[in-house]
């Protein structure tokens, strides 16, 4: 197991480095001379200032040297400087990261639990009205644009019924402490987390259903029946456990989509996370910040993939060392 973790970690680091290099190339692709752009962002564009910037950020150096400096910077957690916000990118991101983690993890857990539950129900009662209802609902949520369903949720639950807050992370100016604060954040979390989770809920439900129906046809289920085991035990112990493996794989593959969902959700609900930060960077054409968020998002996906890998390995004894 430790060797396995070491191997996956090493792989993740290599991929992250590749992403950083890729990121560097993207910066070079940005329109205009980076120094000019930076100068523009800083609000001045006279020649001397541009030259100074060029020297300060090593833009007069040959590309490999610049790349080396860039990578070195990122290794020491220096993601560059945001001229618009007059702050280091790393600091901006660090401030916003916890909110995003809270949102994503909540959305993921909700969607996984409910999705698997509904998928199991649909498979269990395959062919009945319950199955049809779940399947149709899943199909619709699967096709619903996240940003739109978020707006509709606001319209319904905040504007019409005034049940839940639709804006931000906590009630501004209320200064709750302790448990009251937790409750306040929780209330703010409900709408964004559920709307963000809807799509994933639908995917997991569909996957669980399909996978369970597939596993049901395996011989070992017949063996279990031949033992005289009760159906409920067969479903849980033999069918569901095997059926969850592809769901775990899918969850890993969708980590990127989850992060993308955070951008849209945080934008709609003004949730102060890095997704919202990305949107702000976009509005202000703040490329340093944009690419910094991008690198951090990639790292999050890598971490998530690592976790699903470990879970998969823990569940499936057939994975020894080979992938």
């Amino acid at each position, binding site marked *: 197991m430790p060797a396995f973790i070491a191997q996956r970690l090493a792989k993740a680091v290599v*991929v992250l480095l*590749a*992403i950083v290099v*890729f990121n560097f190339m*993207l910066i070079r*692709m*940005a*329109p205009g001379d980076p120094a000019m752009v930076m100068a523009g962002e800083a609000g001045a564009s006279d020649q001397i200032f541009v030259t100074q910037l060029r020297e300060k950020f090593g833009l007069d150096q040959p590309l490999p040297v610049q790349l080396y400096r860039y990578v070195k910077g990122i290794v020491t957690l220096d993601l560059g400087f945001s001229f618009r916000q007059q702050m280091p990118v790393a600091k901006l991101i660090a401030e916003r990261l916890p909110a995003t983690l809270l949102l994503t993890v909540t959305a993921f857990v909700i969607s996984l639990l409910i999705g698997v539950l509904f998928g199991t129900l649909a498979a269990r009662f395959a062919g009945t009205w319950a199955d049809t209802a779940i399947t149709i609902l899943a*199909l*619709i949520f*699967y*096709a*619903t*644009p*996240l*940003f*739109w*369903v978020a*707006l*509709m949720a*606001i*319209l319904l639950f905040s*504007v019409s019924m005034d049940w839940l807050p639709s804006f931000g992370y906590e009630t501004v100016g209320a200064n709750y402490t302790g448990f009251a604060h937790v409750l306040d954040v929780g209330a703010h979390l409900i709408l964004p987390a559920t709307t963000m989770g809807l799509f994933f809920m639908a995917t997991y439900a569909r996957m669980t259903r399909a996978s369970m*129906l*597939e596993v*049901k*046809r395996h011989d070992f289920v017949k063996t279990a029946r031949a033992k005289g085991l009760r159906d409920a035990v067969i479903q849980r112990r033999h069918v569901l456990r095997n059926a969850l493996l592809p769901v775990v794989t899918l969850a890993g*593959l969708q*980590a*990127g*989509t989850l*992060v*993308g*969902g955070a*951008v*849209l959700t945080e*934008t*709609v609900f003004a949730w102060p996370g890095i997704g919202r930060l*990305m*949107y702000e960077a*976009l*509005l202000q*054409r703040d*490329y340093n910040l*944009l*690419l910094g*968020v*991008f690198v951090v*998002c*990639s790292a*999050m*996906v*890598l971490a998530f*993939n690592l976790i699903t890998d470990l879970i998969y390995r823990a569940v499936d004894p057939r994975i020894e060392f080979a992938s």
Partner: protein
Amino acid sequence: MSKFWRTMLRNPGGVIGVTILVLAIAIAIFGPLLFPTSPWRMVQRPFLPPFTVPGLPLGTDALGRDVLAGIIYGARVSLLVGLVSTMAALAVGIPVGALAGYFGGKVGDALMRFTEFFQTVPSFALAIVLVAILQPSIVSIVLAIAIVSWPPVARLVRGEVLSLRTREYVQAAIVTGQSHSWIIWREILPNALSPVIVLASLMVATAILLESSLSFLGLGDPNLMSWGYMVGAGRTVIRQAWWITLFPGIAILLSVLALNLIGEGLNDAFNPRLHKEGR
């Protein structure tokens, strides 16, 4: 092949999907001929609710533009972007996957590492970055969507090719002295096609979602009216005018749903065995 179509038509979801899609395509092609006025033009006073003024069944937006006209013109953008970017993704993914699967070895490994890399990078975030850097335009949007959506194709094709390559009829073709290109084109790809077709129909759906999400964030082509842009524009006034966001969203939902239904129908038609068997 007739059996294939019969299975497809017996699938109610598939039929619904095809119907919606045909309708959407018809609207995209002929709609603008019926509504020759630009969707950007102010036609009435702003914030007209739907079903109040004849000729403007879906009302007007914050700038007095016809919502229905926007949806009709938006159909073009959504379907076009969905289709073209999927084609582009297939054009990259199929050869990469086929080569990696067929030849394997160092080249195959390198190609797959490359693919894995693109699959690890969060796709929507990458699309945002790409469009932002290349400046929003229909070309950059198509390009960005294609770049983020080809890896699954490559992986799928590679997997199929890997398994087909060891199939005995492919070995038989090698043994009878066929060339690599014959084997890939005549023996392997035709048999790998059905899952790719299914995936492609789902990819068009995903591409439409991606395009609308980008437009929603303000990264749409500034010269083209699109559904995502309309939802984004209506967002700030949602408390006064719900219809501006509601209708374009439904349009996105329906077209994506239609494509997903078609994908499922195709899948069932290609793998009829999954449905026949009982417990």
